[in-house]
């Protein structure tokens, strides 16, 4: 007989091995009814594996799973849904070309006919304050709206346990606050929530209990309200945190990167148009661009690398030369360097060796090629230098880049650019999905580069990161970029508002507002 003291879900000694990795090693977890339970850990700590076991996507090698006190097996996601386990995925499990209603129907086992389903969607949307139009095609929706589909799909199953994997990473602070209201309401109704996030401030504010995993093992449980974000972070990584160090430098250097009035139409229906972007990055400073992903970050990045050309040359200048119509190689010739967001298949070729990947962005640099032929010794030497300087853990530079872990590959990619000491470095999400050790060393490398009088532009969704490393921050929303302001000049709330399209509170006088941005 389930009672209020019977756990909703209990995991005992769950073990799951993948080739070469023990992803979960005898993990225990207990979630009570109506409890918001945080699952904490670094990338690779085993959170995702554990969640996939609970939702039936993966199967444990050994261990017991108890649902409301009864031992169960969950062979597939359908069985999980039948028990009352709802799942909101980190990488949305949505179908872009289908409608909202079709997407929801696909995730339900008994959806009834389309019209009743649409009515139920709207009813659920009103009840929890998650407005959604059932007939819209998913690719026309914003990231926040897409997440609502996932949540409503899960809620329509009347779940007893709702699993949310990094739900706020794509939300503005305000949107996240709305989500928390919904989650608290659900918890009051008795729904258990397993909440995975690396934003420790959120967890402290929202969760009743936290379970901490490290290296696939259960470390401890705690009450987040009684901990500080710093203490929880130290439990996660198992050592003392050393935040990146920086000394205040003089940022009055020359404008190495000047973007002036950059506008570009959306490339496809899935794309975002860029609207009159102005920004100057000077030697010696790090400028951060904040914003929820999908607001033009990848479009801006493509224009900066030269993968997409600007409508006119003068829209982008590097060291005073108009490069808007020049391709990536010409921009690299001016000692600019770039780190795109996607490591696999964009910044690096996973099937090629580290030596070949070193050549990828260095082929125009001195000595790497000779009369059209590759100087293998040179790229081998360079790959080795990068690996040594950035402490990349690898099995040998003649092995494929795909064998590196995410953090190590990112260190390699960043190192490959920084070892050339570029005068300008543009990095998009440089620490995304990277463990905190690697993230700290990457951030330190960016800071060190800027202190050598290079200009550094970092596009990131991680506000904490930008606040730590940037001298100035601008916010990108719907293809428009706000004024860049010194980091100390505003609060997280200011940035959050700007991320939803509000102009940042202006305190520098009317002259700054005289740009085309306000004329839509």
């Amino acid at each position, binding site marked *: 007989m389930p009672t209020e003291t019977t756990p909703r879900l209990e995991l005992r000694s769950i073990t799951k091995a993948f080739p070469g990795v023990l992803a979960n090693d005898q993990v225990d977890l207990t979630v009570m009814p109506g409890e918001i339970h945080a699952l904490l850990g670094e990338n690779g700590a085993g959170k995702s594996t554990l969640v996939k076991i609970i939702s039936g996507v993966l199967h444990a090698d050994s261990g017991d799973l108890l649902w409301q006190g009864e031992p169960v097996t969950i062979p597939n996601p359908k069985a999980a849904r039948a028990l009352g386990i709802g799942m909101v995925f980190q990488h949305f499990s949505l179908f872009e070309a289908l409608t909202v209603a079709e997407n929801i129907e696909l995730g339900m086992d008994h959806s009834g006919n389309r019209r009743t389903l649409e009515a139920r969607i709207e009813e659920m949307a009103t009840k929890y304050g998650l407005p959604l139009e059932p007939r819209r095609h998913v690719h026309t929706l914003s990231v926040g709206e897409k997440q609502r589909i996932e949540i409503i799909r899960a809620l329509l199953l009347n779940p007893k346990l709702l699993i949310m994997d990094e739900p706020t990473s794509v939300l503005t602070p305000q949107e996240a606050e709305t989500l928390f209201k919904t989650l608290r309401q659900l918890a009051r109704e008795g729904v258990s929530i397993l909440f995975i996030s690396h934003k420790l401030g959120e967890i402290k504010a929202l969760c009743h209990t936290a379970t901490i995993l490290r290296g696939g093992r259960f470390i401890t449980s705690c009450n987040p309200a009684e901990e500080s974000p710093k203490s929880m972070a130290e439990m996660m990584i198992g050592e003392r945190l050393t935040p990146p160090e920086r000394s205040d430098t003089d940022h009055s250097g020359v404008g190495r990167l000047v973007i002036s009035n950059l506008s570009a139409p959306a490339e*496809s229906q899935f794309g975002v148009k860029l609207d009159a972007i102005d920004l100057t990055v000077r030697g010696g400073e790090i400028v951060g661009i904040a914003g929820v992903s999908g607001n033009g970050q990848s479009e801006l990045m493509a224009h900066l690398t030269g993968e997409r050309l600007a409508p006119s040359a003068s829209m982008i200048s590097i060291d005073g030369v108009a490069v808007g119509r020049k391709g990536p190689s010409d921009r690299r010739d001016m000692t600019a360097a770039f780190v795109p967001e996607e490591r696999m298949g964009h910044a690096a070729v996973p099937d090629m060796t580290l030596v070949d990947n070193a050549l990828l962005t260095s082929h125009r640099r001195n000595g790497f090629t000779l009369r059209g032929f590759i100087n293998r010794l040179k790229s081998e030497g360079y790959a080795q230098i990068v690996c040594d300087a950035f402490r990349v853990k690898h099995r040998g530079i003649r092995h494929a880049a795909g064998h590196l872990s995410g953090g190590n590959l990112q260190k390699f990619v960043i190192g490959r650019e920084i070892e050339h000491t570029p005068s300008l470095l543009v990095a998009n999400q440089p620490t995304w999905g990277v463990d905190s050790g690697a993230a700290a060393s990457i951030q330190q490398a960016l800071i060190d580069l800027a202190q050598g009088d290079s200009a550094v532009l970092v596009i990131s969704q991680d506000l904490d990161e930008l606040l730590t490393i940037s001298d100035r921050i601008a916010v990108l929303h719907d293809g428009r970029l706000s004024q860049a302001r010194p980091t100390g000049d505003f609060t997280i709330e200011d940035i959050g508002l700007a991320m939803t399209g509000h102009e940042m509170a202006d305190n520098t006088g009317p002259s700054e507002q005289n740009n085309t941005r306000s004329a839509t």
Partner: protein
Amino acid sequence: MISVDIVVLTIVSIIGATTPLLIAATGELVTEKSGVLNLGVEGMMLMGAVSGVGATIATDSWILGLLCAAAVGMAFSLLFGFLTLTLMANQVASGLALTIFGAGLSAVIGAPLVGKRVHRIPDLEIAGLTDLPIIGPIFFGHDPLVYFSLISLAAVSWFLFRTRAGLALRAVGESHDSAHAIGYRVIRIRYAAVAFGGMMAGLGGAYLSLAATSLWAEGMTAGRGWIALALIVFAAWRPLRLLLGAYLFGIFWIGQLAVQGLGLPIATEFMGALPYLVTIIVLVIISRDSTKFLLDAPACIGKAFHPTA
């Protein structure tokens, strides 16, 4: 000078030229909607054509001939499915292999059948209707596969866009990772779609050897399998446009024969090349707008799926 009879005859032959393309393309449409690109249509059609003739001669029944062609086409597509879905081989290379292998195998097993005639699949005679002037031969005098081609296209259209199973199939073609995450059996659904495509290609091939002609000849599909693939691009993966495209193509195919028949002073070889040139032109017109093209195509087409951790 052109009599009504000739017009009627031309329309009837257009329908005959269109039907094998339409049957094969309908099958491939389902395969591609599930995210699998099977370039082996030509090979499967050849196997269907030869096994249809073989089985009809052996059993003296065109129904068994068609069933055999469908089964052989399906078996061939499952071979492709095993390579690409289970063993995750490159779909383009495997499809080419299927075509090369099908051409070779059909030539080997068809060698003893060359020169043998079978009875054509009889036309359906509908009392009172078939005898109507003009309308009769155009609408009511065809072999059963002509009606089958239209019904199956309508059924596929209904299945894909009106049923839940069809929604699941399209979902798998759009994002196999998402479909897997919410619990759909991606590989199983794709096997079913590939098998259906193979069955239809086999039938399309058998139409050529049992209905359009009544014999087996080596390489008799003459690139129709490839044209069926091009038709799907032309149709932007939509059933109604597939129907239009197939009939447009049938008109060109018959047009070349008609020009030859009328003895116009145009080299027969030029007219013979025309269907292929038209295909190229159509491809160019359709593919020109690359963003639209990307939006129409199933997002996962040609990509291997391995359920990762």
